[in-house]
């Protein structure tokens, strides 16, 4: 494991990874729904390993029980948005029989209209955010697309950070009990008050020195000293 991996793994140790992930997804769809006064909002994340979109969260109308449902990554409207990186606004979607069936299976209800935007961070497409049945605001369609794009960009940054933490946690768990101990120690020190924290870090630095890492004990890049 490299120094970078170790730092990431230890950082992951101080994040409540799984719980934090759920909270963030829930928050994204809740805020998206509130911004647009929509009937519902939902989020699909890309599972790159299986090349599928996973229905991860919904706010407003719809069924939580469908969370976890999977779709091929490049079919349907969400798939088109993901692959083409283009936002879409569609109204009267219930007129499309195939869409109506897919939507009912995905969310538990058939919306009349939707806005869908890709969640992009740097080169990566993380998933698709959909806002369902927002009230029409005549003359504001382009403004709404702009706003949705801004919100999606912010959501994508947060998701990217959290996914990095999840990957690091997976690496951590795969590395055995020794790293978990380091991560737990880091989390414990991170939770201390300033003065105690300084003492804790000093103790770790001394321990590192004792173990023969004197030259790195001051914390240069690659140092195993946990400074979350």
């Amino acid at each position, binding site marked *: 494991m490299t120094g970078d991996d170790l730092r990431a793994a230890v950082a992951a140790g101080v994040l409540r990874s799984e719980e934090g992930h759920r909270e963030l997804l829930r928050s994204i769809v809740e805020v998206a729904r509130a911004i647009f006064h929509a009937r519902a909002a939902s989020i699909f994340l*890309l599972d*790159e390993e299986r*090349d599928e979109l996973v229905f991860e969260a919904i706010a407003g109308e719809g069924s939580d029980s469908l969370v976890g449902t999977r779709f*091929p*990554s*490049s*079919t*349907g*409207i969400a*798939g*088109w948005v*993901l*692959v*083409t*990186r*283009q*936002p*879409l*606004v*569609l*109204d*009267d*979607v219930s*007129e*499309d*029989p*195939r*869409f109506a069936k897919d939507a009912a299976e995905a969310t538990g209800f058939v919306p009349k209209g939707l806005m869908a*935007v*890709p969640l*992009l*961070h*740097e*080169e*990566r*497409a993380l998933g698709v955010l959909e806002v369902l049945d927002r009230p029409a605001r005549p*003359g504001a*369609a*382009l403004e709404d*697309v*702009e706003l949705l*794009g801004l919100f*999606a*960009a912010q959501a994508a940054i947060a998701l990217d950070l959290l996914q990095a933490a999840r990957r690091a946690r997976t690496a951590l768990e795969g590395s055995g009990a020794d790293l978990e101990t380091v991560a737990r120690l880091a989390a414990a020190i991170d939770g201390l008050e300033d003065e105690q924290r300084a003492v804790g870090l000093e103790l770790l630095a001394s321990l590192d020195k004792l173990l023969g890492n004197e030259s790195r004990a001051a914390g240069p890049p690659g140092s195993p000293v946990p400074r979350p």
Partner: protein
Amino acid sequence: MSAAERTEPLPAWSLPAGAEKGIELAVEWPAEISREWAWGGSTGRGVRVCILDSGIEPDHSSVGPLAGAVAVVRGEDGEITIEPDEEGDLCGHGTACAGIVRSLAPECELFSVRVLGAGYTGSGPVLVAGLRYAIENGFDVVNMSLSTTKRDLAESLHELADLAYFQKTMLIASAHNLPVESFPWRFASVLSVGSHDRAEPLDFFYNPEPPVEFFARGVDIDVAWLQGSSLRCTGNSFATPHMTGICALVLGSHPELTPFQLKSVLYLTATNMIGLR
């Protein structure tokens, strides 16, 4: 004298003394380029338009007959092949684009190259292969309401975009307003399109502050969708086929135009061109 009428090819990189006569340009350009000159009476007849998208539903009443349809398919070993498309449209978007082009240029030839359906993972190489196929097959206009954020594809796409530009294939691509770099719409050899919210399908604006070069109708458009249905849509991906349709009209009247000349005609006939209206 047109290029086809020249008896001796010019050297590739220079113009020797006395060779000026060999590159005399057509003199039919009027003093003022009007929309009437640009596409008056044109139906897009004779212009071959390729829709690089999710496929096109055959026999949709708003689209009419297709001149052909292929799918870019990625095998399990990653090998990419071009096959006749038996599945039609996997989303509805390609059908929507085709319907918009047809509404503006009713007699153009429409051809579908489906680049959707290979999964997210395979989408980049499939997009490049689909674009290469379209250019090799010499379409006059290629509608690309799509983009990629993958940097390692940028070079291939850039080379293809320049190849298209110099062999008289006009690539028309959707811009997007998301704060990430994406391709190919940013390339200068591509005609990039954003949206305006006016209702007139032939209204389009030249943007004096690129990289987005033109704005076309992209808000509240009634479009063809799956299984004979129609939807009302908004987005740059619907503005793009408006520019494609307008290009098909211009090329129907003036098939000799290169992408450089076609862009110039669009600039001179844009709705915001001073004095036009």
